[in-house]
């Protein structure tokens, strides 16, 4: 019996986006098939993992995630260089967490200084993230964008509540942009439309449908991502053809499974592997669902996911 594999090729494809400059620039997207489906179509760029770095020390990260950056996390430049030089980071996601009104309320100008320093210290592409405070971000990210002019960084996140100034800043400074909405394909679509109506090229836009951690709503992110990818490929819906981002670490490293001691919950096994597995499993499942770029925290989790990506490729 001869079996003809039921291949599926699609009319739509996602936009290929380049982040950063020079030899270490990365490309994401460009595929006309689902994640890792190079066996039936065009899958030119494997997913990229970016290491998360913060402008302030990671005091609110669980101990085991803090520990791995113990000697370097007091200063964002040292931390970023450590990720690139020691850990082999292919991209760095600088989160301006300290600009949040509850976490120090660092000024936009000072945040911009940090962006400038980090950008000149590392040669890999930069993702610049606000503190997720809609109002403050709309000020901070404008200054941060100016500081990042010429780096071809990825700026985010623009949300429904604050997208206007952020989109304008990305436009003015020639940056790529993340658009985030909350776990609903229609909201993603609507926001992307609003952004492109401001004259922002959809081929420079990355969609973040909002991440969630394993066991804490992962299935919502997983399915929204599959639906967005399907809309991009099968329905050729240009508004949803941007590559997708999963901001994994910040959701994973606040859940109980990454913190509870084995002594308190012996049936959960040892904390060190459990924490790493929680981040690695969350990220891997979202890569399978369609993520092109993931932001992660723990080097061991990144290593496991990168091994997985290698095994998917060859």
């Amino acid at each position: 019996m001869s079996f003809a594999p039921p291949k599926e090729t699609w009319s739509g494809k996602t936009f290929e986006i380049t982040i950063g400059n020079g030899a270490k620039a990365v490309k994401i997207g460009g595929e006309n098939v689902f994640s890792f489906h190079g066996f039936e179509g065009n899958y030119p760029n494997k997913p990229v993992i970016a290491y998360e770095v913060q402008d302030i020390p990671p005091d609110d990260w669980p101990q085991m995630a803090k520990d791995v950056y113990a000697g370097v996390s007091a200063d964002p430049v040292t931390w970023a260089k450590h990720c690139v030089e020691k850990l082999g980071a292919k991209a760095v996601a600088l989160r301006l967490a300290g600009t949040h009104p509850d976490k120090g309320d660092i000024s936009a100008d000072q945040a911009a200084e940090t962006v400038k320093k980090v950008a000149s210290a590392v040669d890999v592409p930069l993702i610049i993230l606000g503190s997720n405070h809609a109002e403050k971000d709309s000020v901070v990210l404008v200054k941060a964008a100016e500081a990042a002019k010429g780096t071809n960084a990825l700026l985010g996140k623009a949300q429904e509540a604050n997208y206007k100034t952020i989109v304008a800043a990305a436009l003015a400074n020639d940056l790529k942009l993340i658009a985030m909405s909350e776990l609903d394909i229609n909201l993603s679509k609507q926001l992307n439309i609003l952004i492109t109506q401001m004259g922002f090229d959809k081929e420079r836009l990355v969609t973040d449908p909002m991440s969630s951690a394993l066991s804490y709503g992962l299935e919502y992110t997983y399915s929204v991502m599959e639906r967005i990818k399907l809309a991009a490929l099968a329905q050729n819906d240009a508004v949803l053809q941007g590559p997708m981002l999963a901001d994994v670490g910040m959701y994973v490293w606040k859940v109980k499974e990454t913190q509870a001691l084995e002594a308190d919950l012996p049936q959960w096994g040892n904390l060190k592997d459990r924490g790493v597995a929680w981040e690695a499993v969350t990220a891997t499942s979202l890569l399978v669902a369609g993520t092109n770029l993931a932001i992660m925290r723990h080097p061991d989790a990144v290593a496991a996911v990168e091994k997985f990506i290698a095994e998917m490729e060859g």
Partner: protein
Amino acid sequence: MALTGVEIFKLLPKTNCKKCGQPTCLAFAMKLAQRQASIDQCPDVSEEAKQKLGEASAPPIRPITLGTGARAVKIGEETVLFRHEKKFVNPSAISVKISDNLSQADAEKVVAGIMESEIDRVGQKLRVDAAFLSNDSGDASKLAALASLVASRAPELPVIISTTSPDAAEAALKPFAGKNAVLYGANKDNLEAMAQKAKDAKAALAIAASGLDEAAELTEKAKAIVPDLIIDSGARKAGEMLRDNTYVRRAAIKKGFKPLGYPVINFVGRGDNMLETVVAVLSVTKYASIIVLDHLEKWQSLALFSLRQNIYTDPQVPMQVQQNIYKVGEPGPKAPFLITTNFSLTYFIVSGEVENSKVPCRLAVLDSEGLSVLTAWAAGKFTASKIAQFIKESGIEAEIENKELIIPGYVAILSGAIEDKLEGWKITVGPREANGLPAFLKSRA
């Protein structure tokens, strides 16, 4: 593939005798096509037609049950490629390999680990489903010894016997006769003998093919002897498993291709346990019905059980906890009293944060049809009158001294209305995000 009404009509007697309760054979055919009638209602239908209809109405992926009794698990029977289309039906059975090279003491340890793997998670009991007994030694008597050890220590545990030798299979299957075991390792050289051994023990047969072409050939030959088949395409690397699992699922569901209409087994064992865990992620999300692990660590099981639970929940019906007043720690009569919705996710985040605070509390969980706080509020399932009614009927007033209820910050707007409806109660607005709860509760203590 399901038949259309007209295709079914061609198979009926066409006498319009009405014995089926329908005015015409065509009307009956239409009912059958919509699965609103059963072929048995027509007394005159031919055996041939019955068989054809039976084949056509069979699920695209054959359902198979592993084991019997309380630990039995069902696999297969999936109907879609993406979980947003429709619920994935039967969760991947997670199994752990036990080599017959292990000493008896080590083998017993693995069996005990499997039996103790059960974890309660969001109200469901999750565990390792099966043991995979592997004839690594090549020695039939060693496999048989391992099989009888497992059968005596864990009589209810479903097993997969792995060998390429029909004789070894026969001996190892003996303690599991009639217990829905699986025999793994039928290939092109041993197919008939292995199928016969599986049949004799009433076991399912798993095909070990090299490639999907060969898998389809082997299932076609084997099915005459054993109907319950499972497919290993031979894929071992994660990328190959994605390709083959996807082709099998599509062929079965979209093309109605019967030779591949069976559950799939994946082997994810790796020396590096973390890598093994993430490769298993691929198998859980992308269509494996049985996953064979080499390791059995608690953290690994917890992560994979949780993923499997996420992927296999019904996208239309969120997971829920029962309406009740739950205690966190050992709350006294003056302990804080909070309320939230019965969406599992909400409940577990909130109760987790209350636990983190180390302040003993009571947590009222209102049945809001599994919706989050804001969604439930927007949908009218978390309203002042429902909350008031629940509190009154719960009998909590007799248990506590302070009639104070802490509500989620996102529904601060409800506080006045609840106070109106709950006489003598004080309503306090808590933080918006649950992660604000530890500080909030500690500051009051």
